[in-house]
């Protein structure tokens, strides 16, 4: 509230064209949302799923055209976002990028029409399964139209977004909301991605952001808290100990347990800062999964983990029957977590965290209890991962030590670095981008490349296993971000300036001569 009040607001005038575009496109998006209720059941196995493409072995030109259209669509869709970001950096895009967008837009529209004609009259088959027996085949075209509509909304909202930082936040949530209809219409693997990867990692990112972003404590072993939350909830809702607690009680229990461990593991690191803290937390991140592998205290089930975790149900709603419920539950939870964390960030404790991050000595001399503030950051950060852990177990129905490896810590860290350390909106965006690339694009690239190699008779392409390149992507993302946008895609205002000037503050205990 305070920040918005004093931040100079830069007004960008909105033209009539923007308004018309936005309203029309918003109507289309709304239609996209409502469509599932009007269109009856789709034919089996039909979906925007590469598996379908493979199983139905598309061979025609339609498939290829759809790929090209997809690229054009992405350019149009992303250009307003890029432009908004560049504007914030006071580097408006030039004429050339306008030309690129225009060309992409025209090519995309033309190809959309071409694909539609191919589908309707030539019975050409683009990606969407068997033709002729279902209206869903049209959704290839519908999908394209939808994307253009979405692009127009983003483009139309640009003036609003540029003038108001809070609208920036809403804009980052838009891609998520916009993809929902896709999910309803289409692939089950999309729902799986949205719950198991996107929502869980988003929660983890939000939690780690409290520790790293707000309080400035670099934690490389965050997966440890995820593991504790996951195992705690798995033990309490599976046959392994004969305890069956409802998931909706369990998320609180999981959060409480993870918070407790957050405080316990945080305590020895209180005097450390920077590199030393990172190394110690790295150790925790390794110890916890190792304990789980060794079946510590007979609680964790060893290397095989705990399986047969209960699927939650509320009254008539059975989560196992329709995984969409996981999505809704997780989205609700994420929204609640985002709101709570934003409130905290703006309140007394949030100021204390920032003060701690900026200058620990001055913070202590100003009356902030550095010990409790740090422990609170660890505990609150960990509690969010407890929530994520509870849902993760319920979704995949088995937790094993491999789920909580160092790769998870790195993924979560990459998410917040990519999105913007210390900025909740940035974390949401980072989670979206990174999980989309790592957990959806990469596995599907395998299928796409197979189709592509098959179509154009290039066996070498069809043999590539893209999921092996996950770590290269993490690495490349981190390196490129540090080089070109050290504050992330959506930087928090303070963090941006801070990183650019490269200040390192000393720890209280170092000044006191205790460490």
């Amino acid at each position: 509230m305070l920040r918005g009040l004093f931040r100079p607001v830069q007004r960008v005038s909105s033209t009539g064209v923007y308004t018309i575009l936005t309203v029309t496109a918003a109507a289309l998006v709304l239609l996209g949302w409502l469509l599932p209720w009007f269109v009856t059941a789709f034919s089996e196995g039909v979906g925007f799923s590469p598996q379908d493409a493979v199983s139905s072995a598309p061979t025609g030109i339609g498939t290829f055209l759809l790929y090209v259209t997809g690229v054009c669509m992405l350019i149009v869709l992303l250009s307003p976002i890029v432009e908004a970001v560049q504007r914030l950096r006071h580097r408006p895009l030039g004429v050339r990028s306008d030309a690129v967008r225009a060309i992409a837009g025209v090519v995309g529209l033309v190809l959309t029409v071409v694909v539609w004609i191919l589908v309707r009259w030539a019975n050409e088959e683009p990606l969407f399964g068997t033709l002729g027996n279902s209206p869903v085949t049209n959704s290839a075209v519908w999908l394209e139209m939808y994307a253009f509509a979405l692009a127009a909304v983003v483009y139309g909202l640009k003036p609003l977004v540029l003038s108001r930082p809070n609208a920036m936040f809403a804009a980052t949530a838009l891609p998520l909301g916009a993809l929902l209809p896709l999910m309803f219409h289409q692939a089950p693997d999309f729902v799986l991605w949205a719950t198991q990867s996107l929502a869980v990692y988003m929660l983890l990112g939000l939690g780690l952001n409290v520790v790293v972003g707000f309080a400035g404590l670099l934690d490389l072993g965050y997966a440890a808290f995820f593991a504790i939350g996951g195992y705690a909830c798995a033990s309490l809702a599976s046959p392994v100990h004969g305890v069956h607690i409802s998931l909706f009680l369990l998320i609180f229990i999981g959060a409480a347990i993870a918070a407790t461990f957050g405080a316990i593991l945080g305590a020895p690191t209180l005097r450390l800062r920077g590199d030393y803290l990172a190394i110690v937390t790295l150790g925790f991140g390794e110890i916890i999964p190792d304990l789980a592998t060794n079946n510590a205290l007979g609680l964790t089930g060893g290397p095989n983990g705990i399986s047969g975790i209960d699927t939650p149900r509320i009254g008539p709603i059975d989560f196992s029957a329709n995984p969409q419920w996981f999505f809704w539950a997780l989205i609700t939870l994420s929204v609640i977590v985002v709101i709570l964390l934003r409130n905290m960030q703006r309140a007394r404790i949030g100021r204390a965290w920032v003060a701690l991050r900026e200058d620990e000595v001055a913070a202590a001399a100003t009356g902030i209890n550095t010990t409790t503030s740090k422990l609170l950051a660890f505990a609150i950060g960990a509690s969010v991962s407890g929530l994520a852990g509870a849902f993760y177990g319920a979704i995949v129905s088995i937790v094993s030590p491999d789920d909580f490896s160092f790769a998870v810590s790195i993924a979560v860290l990459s998410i917040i670095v990519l999105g913007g350390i210390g900025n909740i909106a940035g974390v949401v965006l980072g989670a979206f981008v990174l999980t989309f690339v790592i957990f959806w694009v990469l596995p599907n690239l395998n299928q796409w490349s197979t189709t592509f190699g098959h179509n154009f008779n290039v066996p070498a392409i069809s043999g590539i296993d893209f999921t092996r390149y996950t770590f290269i992507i993490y690495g490349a993302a981190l390196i490129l971000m540090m080089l070109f946008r050290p504050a992330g895609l959506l930087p928090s205002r303070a963090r941006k300036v801070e990183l650019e000037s490269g200040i390192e503050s000393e720890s209280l205990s170092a000044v006191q001569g205790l460490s």
Partner: protein
Amino acid sequence: MPLLELDHVSKQFGGLLAVANVSFSIDEREIVSMIGPNGAGKTTAFNCVTGLFLITRGEIRLDGHSISGVPPHRITTLGIARTFQNIRLFSYMTAVDNVMVGAHWWMKERVWDGAFTTPRSRREEREVERRALDLLDQLGLAGYAGSYARELPYGLQRRLEIARALATRPRLLLLDEPAAGLNPQEKNELMALIAQLRDEGLTVFLIEHDMRVVMEISDRIVVLDHGEKIAEGAPAQVRENPQVIEAYLGTGASKVMHTA
């Protein structure tokens, strides 16, 4: 009873005795300056009083109660606030946020109040924000409430640091070279501010190198050299003290090369 009492305080860093057996006391509503050449241990003494350093020997008392070994944030809550020689603001917080951090310890808002923005938390945030803005206003920082501390001109940063210290509701204010880097007019304003704070009931203890400031506003002066207290008294007395003059000017510095 004196407000602050240093009783044979020593602080040792390895082989270096930075503060050596120093004793003095400060009464309520007094303005006391601590002077001495560079490296005399003045800032070290400040750090001992505010709990940043644990003292090696002796005792520091506030209102007769020992505060040796009490952590820095507790000392702030006991009524000692300070500024730093090299300004230590929260650079990337706004000026008003910096001041609101000063209110941290006496705010009643709990973590869950903040998380759920309960009416109580909202009321208190508004109240503290209003007070912070008032305080900025009184220190002539009204137009800078929304600027990052880092963006402020140097003189105003010094003043913002005082504002942050005042927000902690201190009884004793420790200022570490508050006039350093200020122009003559800013120095005059600073002296007026310090006098005004004393009139409002505050006790001020400052380290300062600017002799005009020290001589004009101090009730008493403590002189340190090589960690030891070499003189204490009213400005006029200290000015005439041969030991002080020697500490500052050395023994015939200009003649050293001639005799050698």
